[in-house]
């Protein structure tokens, strides 16, 4: 199941990259996709973690929100950097997580890191240790908006 869908995804990826549709290149693409998946099976990386195909359609709703958040917080950090007084108040904080799957937790952790002003430092059972540039961004994270959205994005299986 994962194998077949992986081959398909890789083949589409190939076609996107290639843009050339000669018989040779299409054949090469198909062959490459199959070969890569065979190698990946050897590595045992073709599973729900390595190939989270089930999440793909939810990206459509999640990413725009994420981009907005990134832009907002990046602007906040920019102001801090450009402020001559450098008004920072670095804070370490533990953020609880509500995701069920590893992919979900990783997504949440990476989203925390991706939004400037907060970085996930350690991912642990049920919580993430976060370093925030200011108290405010730490507080913002603790409100749990992102946590809820990632959990929703992860979906229930």
């Amino acid at each position, binding site marked *: 199941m994962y194998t077949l869908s992986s081959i398909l995804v890789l083949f589409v990826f190939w076609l996107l990259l290639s843009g050339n549709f000669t018989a040779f290149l299409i054949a090469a693409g198909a062959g490459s996709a199959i070969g890569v998946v065979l190698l990946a099976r050897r590595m045992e990386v073709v599973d729900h973690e390595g190939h989270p195909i089930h999440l793909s359609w939810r990206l459509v709703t999640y990413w725009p929100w994420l981009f907005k958040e*990134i832009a907002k917080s990046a602007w906040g950090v920019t102001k801090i950097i450009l402020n001559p007084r450098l008004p920072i108040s670095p804070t370490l904080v533990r953020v609880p997580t509500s995701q069920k799957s590893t992919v979900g937790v990783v997504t949440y952790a990476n989203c925390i*890191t991706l939004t400037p002003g907060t970085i996930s430092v350690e991912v642990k059972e049920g919580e993430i240790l976060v370093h925030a*540039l200011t108290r405010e961004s730490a507080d913002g994270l603790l409100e749990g908006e992102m946590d809820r959205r990632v959990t929703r994005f992860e979906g229930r299986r």
Partner: protein
Amino acid sequence: MSVFVDAVSWACLIAGGVFCVIGAVGLIRMPEFFTRIHAAGVTDTLGAGLILLGLMLQAGFTLVAVKLAMIGVLILFTSPTATHALAKAGLARGLKPLLAEDRSKPSNP
């Protein structure tokens, strides 16, 4: 249309370049390692995103745009991963963050 797209794309490129510089300035200005990571984040997100967007607008709906998008996705996935790994490694190797407040202590006896 093309003028408008051009204008937007120029704006994106300039803004992206500026954010990149700001991130780099932050890299210099910030007092210690963990705070510097946040500054680098500006370059990685807003700077990179805007520049790639500007370039994509220039490229139009072509293969080049697809590749630019791919670079964007690549950065989107790898940048936080690398940053996180850095922060984790720093902490693990005994690098003490400069803190105004440590709210992690209570739950970490």
